[in-house]
C-alpha cells in the first residue's frame, strides 16, 4: 500500500496504542514511546515492521505511543493507520 497522506489510529487509553503514519520519500522510520519500552522495545518494533511488510509499505514515517497494548491490538492499530493513510478500507489481503 502507498502511504499518500498522514493518518492515525488508536487511543491514549491503557492497553491501547496510538499510531501515526505519514508519507516519506525514502524507507521506513519508526519512533516508539512505550510504557514497557525497556522490556519490549525490540518486540514492539518487530511487530510494527511485520505489519508494514504485510501491507507492503516501503516508505513511511511511523510514530507509536504504546500504553501497554498486547500484540494483536498493536497490529490492529498499525494496520488501521496504514489503511487510513493509503485510503484503503480492506482488512485482509
Amino acid at each position: 500500500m502507498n502511504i499518500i497522506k498522514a493518518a492515525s489510529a488508536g487511543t491514549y487509553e491503557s492497553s491501547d496504542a496510538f499510531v501515526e503514519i505519514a508519507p516519506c520519500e525514502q524507507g521506513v522510520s519508526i519512533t516508539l514511546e512505550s510504557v514497557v519500552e525497556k522490556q519490549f522495545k525490540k518486540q514492539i518494533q518487530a511487530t510494527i515492521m511485520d505489519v508494514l511488510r504485510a501491507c507492503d509499505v516501503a516508505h513511511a514515517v511511523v510514530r507509536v505511543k504504546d500504553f501497554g497494548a498486547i500484540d494483536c491490538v498493536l497490529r490492529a492499530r498499525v494496520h488501521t493507520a496504514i489503511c487510513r493513510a493509503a485510503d484503503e478500507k480492506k482488512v485482509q489481503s
Partner: protein
Amino acid sequence: MKRSMLFTPANNAGNVMNAGALASDRIILDLEDSVSPLEKDAARMLAYYALKYMDYEKEVVVRINAITTPFWKDDISAVVPGLPQFLMVPKINCADDIRIIDEYVCEVEAKHGIEVGTVKLIALIETALGVENAFEIATSHARVSALFLGAADLSSDVHSVRTPKGEEIAYARSRVVYAARAAGIDAYDTPWPFIHDMEGAEADAMTAKQFGFTGKVAIYPAHAELFNRIFSPSQQEIEYAFGVIEALAEGEQQGKGVLTYNGEMIDAPSLLRAQQIVDMVNEMKGGRQA
C-alpha cells in the same frame, strides 16, 4: 454453555483484551451501536485481529451493522476471515433479510477458503415486523442458530416505553421464544438496561427463564455472572430431574406410563424436561449432551 452473552465494544482495546476473563458464556464484539461511524474501520480491524490471535476459550459473536446501513458488507468482509462462531445481525424484519446476509457471508467464506455455512447467525429481533415474522426468520436458513429479542429498539418501534417490569414486551418475549423453540433453535432475552439495579436484573432474568429463553444478553459483566446463575438449573431442579428419571424408569419396569412423584403426576413430558436439566448439568461439567 449459552446462558449469557456479554456485549463488548469492539474498538475498546482494554475491553477486547479482557473479555475472555469475564463470566459470560459467550462474548459479543460489537461493531454496531457502541462504535461511532468514524471508528467502524478501527473496530473491524481490532475485532479481526482479536479473533485471529486471542484465545478467548469461549464462543465469540460479532454484532455487525444492520443491512440498512452502509457498513454491514465491510463488517462481514473484515471479520468472517477471523472465524467468529456467530454473526449477530441487527434489525432483522423478515426471511429475505437473512437471505441477503447469507448470500454475502457465503461469498466471503468461499473467498477465504472457509467451508460455506461455517459462521452461524443470531437474528436480532427488535422491530414489530421482526416480532411478527419471528418464525419465518427462525426457519429462513440453516445458519440461523438463535433469535435475540432487543427490547430497546422494539419499544421505540411500537411507541412504548421500556419499564423495569417489562409488561410492554410480554407478547414479544412469548412470540420470540415460541418461534425459536418451534424452529429448534435458541432464544436470547433482551439486556437488563438499568445497570446498577441488580435486584431488578435478577427478577428480570427469572421472568425470562420462565418465558423459556435459553439465556440472556448482558451489557454489564456483573449481569452476565447473575444470568449464568439464574439460567443454570438449581439444586432443587437437579434433584427433581434425577428423581423424575429414576421414578419413570421404575414405573416403566412395572409397565406404568403415568405415575406420581412427590405428589405430582409425571409422564413423558416430565421426562423430557428432566432430561433437558440433566443435559445442562452435563454441559456445565464439560460433558456431552445426551
